[in-house]
């Protein structure tokens, strides 16, 4: 539960990550971090930014963003 400062000083990066059991992307499994992978939500799931935009893309294309507007061109 508590780690000594001496033990922390020599701990490997993997051991530190294992301490946290960090949140992973529900799509690709990458460990999530705001400034590197991004951390977004799709419903109840946390996903990285790459997966967020990739999975959102098909939906945007199926229902494109638009509203009826005036047309000037021929």
């Amino acid at each position, binding site marked *: *539960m*508590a*780690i*000594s*400062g*001496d033990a*922390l*000083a020599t*701990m490997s*990066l993997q051991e*530190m*990550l294992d*301490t*946290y*059991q*960090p*949140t992973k992307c529900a799509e690709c499994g990458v460990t*999530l*971090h*705001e*400034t*590197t*992978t991004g*951390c*977004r*939500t*799709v*419903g*109840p*799931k*946390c996903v990285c*930014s*790459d997966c*967020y*935009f*990739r*999975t*959102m*893309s*098909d*939906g*945007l*294309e*199926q*229902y*494109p*963003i*638009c*509203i*009826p*507007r*005036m*047309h*000037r*061109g*021929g």
Partner: protein
Amino acid sequence: MNTVFISEEEVRGYLRDFIARLSQLDKGVPRVWCPIGPSGLRLAQVAMQLDADLASQTQVVPIVFDRSNSTVSFSNDRCPEEVVKGRSILLVDGSVHSARTISRAYAVLESLGPSDISSYSLVVRSGASMVPNFFGLLVGDHDRVHFLKQEIPNNRLLPFGRVRTLAFEDLDKPMVQTGEHFIDKFTWSDLWYEMRADRRRKTYLYERTGEIQGFVSFRVGKARGVLVDTLGVGRQHQRQGIAGALLRWVETLGRHRRCRSLSLWGVEQRREWYENRGFQARGSQMVLDGVKFYMMRKKLLYSLPDDELIC
């Protein structure tokens, strides 16, 4: 939006100063450190490596933040009450954004009866609701800071083709046919005219092998919001990630322009789909050609409170 890089030597410099100031507290020196997340733990590790006396006298209790339900707990789910009670505690974070996480951690620790709580963060954003007792760098809400990283992420759209602005030479080219009649009646001249009439309006195309395959038209608003009013991809080029890449570019540009929100008009049957992806219906509705539209809006900065959505 500024990107700040803190070198490893600069990180050590900030921590050396912090350790020196801690030692001046004499009897009040926190001997239990609670680093938040991997970045907090990494900072604590560097501090222990810098000062052997500190390392030999300090106990470390890592704090875990679960992003899926925004809860704070301790590693291995073991409550450290016997370690914390009556002791002077130091909360350590790498970067404080909204301060929701560090505030929750503070409240949890306070409930365990420490004698006192101090806090340190290497980076603090100006919109943070809690200010640590000690911090290294103060940055703007839109700024990004990288430190102690093996890899620094590049911005990324699609690996091939190009995203570019609509040009006069495009006006005679065939329009993208999306299958959505609201969009397919447009011409490039319509969008060109809008860009010329309103300098806040931009149209970007995705082009590959000489063919325009998709486009996005948006406006950067007066109240620092981005409004996307048209995004479409040609039917034969769909399911290749083009729409997602165009929207990603709009978000990136919006953050660079210090926008706080992104808005779009979503049709009624897609409202829940947008809400599942971070958008909220913000009041405005309209019915056009028998179709009901909602103004959907989402924060470009996740650290903003919900009631700060503006456009």
